[in-house]
């Protein structure tokens, strides 16, 4: 079989309707032009630094380190960026690119609402129209983010098809894009979908690992032993890993949402439980049945509640450069509370999956070892849902 565009090993590709082909070709062409354009990069860096608050801090979690009694733990504070999550890095890049392409309207999918809020924010900033597709179930789980998007001037469309979660929001955004391409850019929120999205989103998120590298060298004079990040589609994880891929001594660990456990059907741990397939524009691993029907996945975290994973992660898993571990709802909620009390940092429930796994491995590592955990977002949005999970009758 002839090698096609946008491949990571056997993964990736462009499995999309013909209607969208010229749109992704146009996007690829524009991206290849602007990524090396000094003016574009100057504008983007200005936005990332002066608007979004980069570089984000690399914080030494002293209490957590002492409490766990093993490896030194650093937290990469993406939660401190504007809109409260790493999603803004990608969105500012794509919105600026879309604007240069002459697009006046952004559409996006969102799970937890972080990408939707970031897209609505960039649209407001750049004077663009914005429509966000969000699974109806997620509009309930993340009601505050729905309000924020509307406040920012976006239209939020609750998606009632399928499982009414992130997967269906992606499908609906794709359908919308096929109906209106001329003035519309689909601002995809993760390192997934058809080429060139996995590459574009990765490049815009790679600023995370670029900064980690500079910051850890300054603080410790050496590279870390492990980098941990949560993985749904995988954008904060690939951003955290990317500039370390060639540094073979740095372990790259992606933490998947196991939901109620990888031996139950209520899980979203794609690499741990899925199989190779073709969906949402890409070849990668998916949770599916033996006939290729996409499984109705589950996680407490709306942002990780997705049945697929970005093709570059699938590839890093295949070549064993990164490992992907499952973390359950219970473990994530426990870590959510732990980091809040231990460090006074309330992490997004998505990021709490990475915190939970660090808690498992750090005690067994020597005190001379260093772990970096990416706190992809802040947990304000999750407080009510976690309270309910713990049996409290709290609504926003």
């Amino acid at each position, binding site marked *: *079989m*002839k090698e*096609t*565009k946008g491949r990571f090993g056997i993964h990736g*590709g*462009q*499995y*999309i*309707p*013909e*209607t*969208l*082909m*010229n*749109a992704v070709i146009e996007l690829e062409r524009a991206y290849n032009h602007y990524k090396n354009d000094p003016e574009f990069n100057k504008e983007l860096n200005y936005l990332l630094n002066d608007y979004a608050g980069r570089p984000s801090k690399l914080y030494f979690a002293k209490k957590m380190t002492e409490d766990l009694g093993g490896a030194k733990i650093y937290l990469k504070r993406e939660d401190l960026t504007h809109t409260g999550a790493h999603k803004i890095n990608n969105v500012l890049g794509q919105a600026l690119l879309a604007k240069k392409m002459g697009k006046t309207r952004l559409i996006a999918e969102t799970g937890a609402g972080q990408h939707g809020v970031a897209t609505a924010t960039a649209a407001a900033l750049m004077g663009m129209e914005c429509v966000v597709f969000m699974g109806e179930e997620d509009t309930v789980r993340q009601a505050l983010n729905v309000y924020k998007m509307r406040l920012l001037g976006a239209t939020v469309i609750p998606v009632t*098809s*399928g499982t009414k979660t992130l*997967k*269906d929001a992606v*499908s609906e955004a*794709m*359908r919308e894009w*096929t*109906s*209106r*391409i001329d003035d519309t850019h689909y601002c995809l929120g993760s390192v997934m979908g058809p080429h060139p999205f996995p590459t574009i989103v990765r490049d815009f998120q790679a600023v995370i690992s670029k900064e980690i590298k500079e910051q850890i060298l300054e603080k410790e004079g050496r590279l870390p032993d492990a980098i941990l990040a949560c993985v749904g589609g995988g954008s904060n994880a690939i951003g955290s890993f990317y500039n370390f891929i060639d540094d073979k001594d740095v372990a790259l660990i992606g933490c998947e949402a196991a939901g109620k456990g990888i031996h139950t059907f209520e899980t979203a741990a794609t690499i741990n439980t899925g*199989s*190779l*397939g*073709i*969906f*949402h*524009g890409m070849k990668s691993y*998916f949770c*599916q049945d*033996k*006939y*290729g*029907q*996409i499984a109705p996945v589950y996680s407490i975290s709306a942002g990780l509640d997705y049945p697929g994973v970005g093709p570059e992660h699938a590839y890093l898993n295949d070549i064993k450069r990164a490992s992907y571990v499952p973390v359950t709802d219970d473990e994530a909620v426990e870590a959510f509370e732990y980091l809040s009390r231990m460090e006074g940092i309330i992490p997004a429930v998505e990021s709490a999956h990475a915190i939970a796994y660090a808690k498992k491995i750090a005690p067994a590592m020597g005190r001379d070892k260093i772990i970096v955990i990416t706190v992809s977002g802040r947990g304000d949005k999750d407080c009510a849902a976690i309270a309910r999970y713990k049996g409290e009758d709290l609504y926003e």
Partner: protein
Amino acid sequence: MNKIHEAFKNRKAFIPFITCGDPDVDTTKAAILEMVKNGADLIEIGIPFSDPTAEGVVIQGANIRALKGGITTDKVFDMVADVRKEISIPLVFMTYANVIFSYGAEKFFDKCNEVGIDGIILPDIPFEEKGEFLDVADSHKVDLISLIAPTSDDRIAMIAKEAKGFLYIVSSLGVTGTRSEITTDLDSIVKVVKENTSVPCAIGFGISTPQQANEMSQIADGVIVGSAIINLLKKYKNEAPKYIGKYVKEMKEAMD
């Protein structure tokens, strides 16, 4: 060339679509027999997929109902094997890449040969990715049918030159579903197609009325109708086949 070209011989082809297993396979089989009896020239049988991203709400609904009813790819093959005993017109599948990929392409196309499927339409396999299934489809003499969209522009010639079976011309932007008006300049698209291939072309997406069928049949070699038929199934359920037969007859007459 396999038997798909027979559907277009000396006439404009009417191509109805049906989602297999909505609401059950017996109804699908009965509907197919009615379609053939009333003049269908080629039938497009949908193998349900959980997340049909190229479909509008009507066919999405059919996919969900069929899957809830317990349809599987194997049961679709069984239905085709069964109905094949009574009909000889060309049959094509319409499904998504993952359905074939997960089944195993070799095994899938073996089964196509076994039950008598002549072509396959995959809306999520564009020209660039057809290598995924092309060799195995070719070796089984099953036509991998290409689609052309209103946005295809400079891609039309490239796609048409390698077309097999027939070319599926998507009439409008967006997903499947009935439309009151089709505004794409289909004449120009068909002109480029004809300059580049002798393979017939059929127009689909948004066509539901006899008047539209008549108009489209003047432009292209065939007309594809899906959502209007699914609407009849949704309304009449297992009583739908006779209404579908009547509808196919009206559409076919409008094209003559």
